[in-house]
């Protein structure tokens, strides 16, 4: 939050209170403004929030604990398929969200631990390739587990997933107030997702500024020294994988409910890399930065898609670079240039793992 406040022009540095109010207002009003352009933009915002959640979760693994995970989307898939299994006509089971979402998160966390165990001793680059393999394995299984027993319905995916019902209230149904005035369900999803994202951010922030967050940072910076101050490196790494996966699992469940359809092609390696690009772009380890990174990189392609094609058609009479290529170009350049020019990301504000201000307010502490 503080990072977000700081980037507000002028007020960010001069009057943080006003800046904070501006940020809050923007977050709350954004979907209504987007609705002015068209509900499609609200849907994009909804997806952006899911990406924020994924990025915040991956940041916990990559940014805090320094474990490069290229198979992160697998946990998203676990969450989404949990929803598909337990809240769709596929098995004829329709459980409420407060059972399915925690279960999805739990399965994802379990998957995180299963991935974590064999890779505990691996160094950064080996870890990357094994996690990549893990992501692919999960996808391949989902694509093939329709034979000999049909579990995942294979490449056809699972359709007609239940939408999100929060204690009897169907989020996917517009609220009709009068005949001419109703609240779009996309807006409702936005605020529901916003609640989940806010909760995730609060939890991740609490973890960061805690005994556990500091232990992760210590392992990231020097795992031998971390052992030497008494940190159980193995358990801490497993916890990082499990916690990161949990957020992925919740996001996956919400994705399933929102989209109403899951199929293995939504969980490709490309998606893992997109989320990684968001984390890197915003600044590894820096929650505010990661949020901005996720928002920017999920909006940019849509903006490109709306304006790049008409602009090119107007300028050159044809489409030279289609939006998909522009999108890949953006991700590729984001990864390369961020690492080369600003390894700490768009907003290299220092990550904090303590709150010295609380205790040391009356003591003189230098720069």
């Amino acid at each position: 939050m503080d990072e977000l406040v700081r980037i507000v022009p002028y007020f960010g540095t001069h009057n943080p209170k006003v800046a904070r109010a501006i940020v809050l207002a923007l977050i709350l009003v954004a979907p209504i403004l987007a609705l002015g352009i068209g509900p499609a933009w609200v849907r994009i915002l909804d997806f952006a929030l899911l990406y924020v959640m994924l990025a915040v979760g991956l940041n916990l693994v990559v940014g805090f604990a320094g474990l490069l995970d290229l198979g992160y989307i697998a946990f998203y898939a676990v969450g989404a398929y949990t929803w598909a299994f337990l809240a769709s006509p596929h098995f004829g089971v329709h459980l409420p969200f407060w059972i399915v979402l925690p279960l999805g998160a739990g399965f994802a966390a379990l998957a995180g631990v299963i991935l974590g165990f064999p890779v505990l001793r691996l160094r950064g680059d080996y870890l990357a390739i094994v996690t990549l393999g893990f992501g692919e394995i999960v996808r391949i299984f989902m694509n093939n587990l329709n034979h000999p027993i049909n579990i995942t319905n294979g490449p056809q995916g699972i359709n007609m997933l239940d939408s999100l019902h929060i204690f009897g209230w169907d989020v996917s149904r517009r609220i009709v107030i009068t005949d001419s005035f109703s609240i779009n369900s996309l807006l409702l999803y936005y605020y529901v997702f916003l609640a989940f994202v806010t909760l995730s951010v609060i939890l991740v922030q609490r973890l960061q500024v805690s005994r556990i967050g500091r232990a992760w940072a210590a392992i990231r910076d020097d795992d031998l020294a971390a052992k030497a101050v008494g940190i159980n490196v193995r358990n801490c790494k497993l916890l990082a994988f499990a916690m990161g996966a949990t957020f992925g699992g919740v996001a996956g469940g919400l994705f399933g409910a929102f989209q109403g359809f899951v199929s293995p092609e939504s969980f490709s390696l490309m998606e893992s890399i997109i989320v990684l690009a968001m984390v890197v772009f915003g600044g590894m380890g820096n929650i505010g930065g990661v949020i901005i990174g996720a928002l920017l990189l999920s909006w940019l392609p849509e903006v490109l898609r709306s304006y790049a094609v008409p602009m090119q058609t107007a300028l050159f009479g044809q489409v030279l670079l289609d939006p998909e290529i522009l999108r890949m170009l953006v991700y590729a350049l984001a990864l390369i240039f961020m690492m080369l020019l600003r390894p700490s990301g768009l907003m290299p504000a220092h990550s904090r793992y303590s709150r010295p201000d609380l205790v040391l307010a009356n003591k003189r502490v230098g720069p």
Partner: protein
Amino acid sequence: MKKTMIALAMLAFGTVHAQEMVVKIGSSAPLTGAQAHLGKDTENGVRLAIEDANAKGVVVGGKKVKFELVGEDDQADPKQGTAVAQRLVDAGVKAVIGHMNSGTTIPASRIYNQAGIVMISPSATNPTLTQQGFENVFRVMAHDGKQGPAAAKFALSKLGKKVAVIDDRSAYGQGLADEFEKAVKAGGGTVTTREFTTDKATDFMTILTKVKSQNPDVIFFGGMDPQGGPMVKQVKQLGIEAKFLMGDGGCTPELIKLAGDAIKEGSAFCTQPGVPLEQLPDQNFKARFLKRFNAEVQAYSPYAYDATLTVIDAMKTAGSVEPAKYLPALKKIQHKGVTGMIKFDEKGDLKDGAITVYAFKAGKWEPLK
């Protein structure tokens, strides 16, 4: 502050009820990416139909109506498909002709269903599309549940009883291969092996060696041409004598190009829903299409054209452009299109859709009688 927000919200949520003279019709297909040529073809089919209708002048419920095309690009990606569907709903279209691929059509159909908008796909052939129980979902092409059996019937009667089946684990390939396998078994044939590859693979030697060990008469591949071409080559490299059969994913010039000198006359076949272009009831269509867009008909434009005019026909009959009003008319419609008679069964599938078998001959695909 509060008041302006409410005003803004009213502006955003309010729906326009006034009857417009302009009626928007949506079209969604991949306009960029690997299947862009097919997507553009589909969209142009819709465009031509709208231009024809406008030129003729359509009167619905006593009012003169001008139709307008809203074309969107779904990149053949399910997630983009739903985003695009939302954009079309936002734009206030009264019907959508699309999407092109089954993978994008199925999730998108849910959004159209919620918005109460009629959707007719000119080309999505996955059977489950019309099995969702959506009232407003139709298609004007025979689905895989018909193509698979047709291909199986051809294989069993003309090529042999022992069949090996391969699919590429994509929604399209697996769906078609499953229908084919079912029909072969029902028709008294034997499936010697069922093998799998991916839609990114280029090496099929391992699975083909396995196929070869069972010595089938026919190899059926449910997949697309980038895999089909090299597969034909490797069939030859392993000295396999079996005939090679594919669905519509292989009925392309691309397959012939990629298969190179390995493809032989009399040993490669493919099936495709619909009648061959040369045998379209309305031969005029091809010429008019070429004249209008300076491009040959690729595949789906006649179906998109028919789908569009079918909807317009239904609007005329019902005397309304509102989907809820013209839907009953559409269900009962009998529209004489360029691809044949368009009428729907209770699920929204085309009744009596034709399937054509093609054989490789003289460097191209020739329809068999």
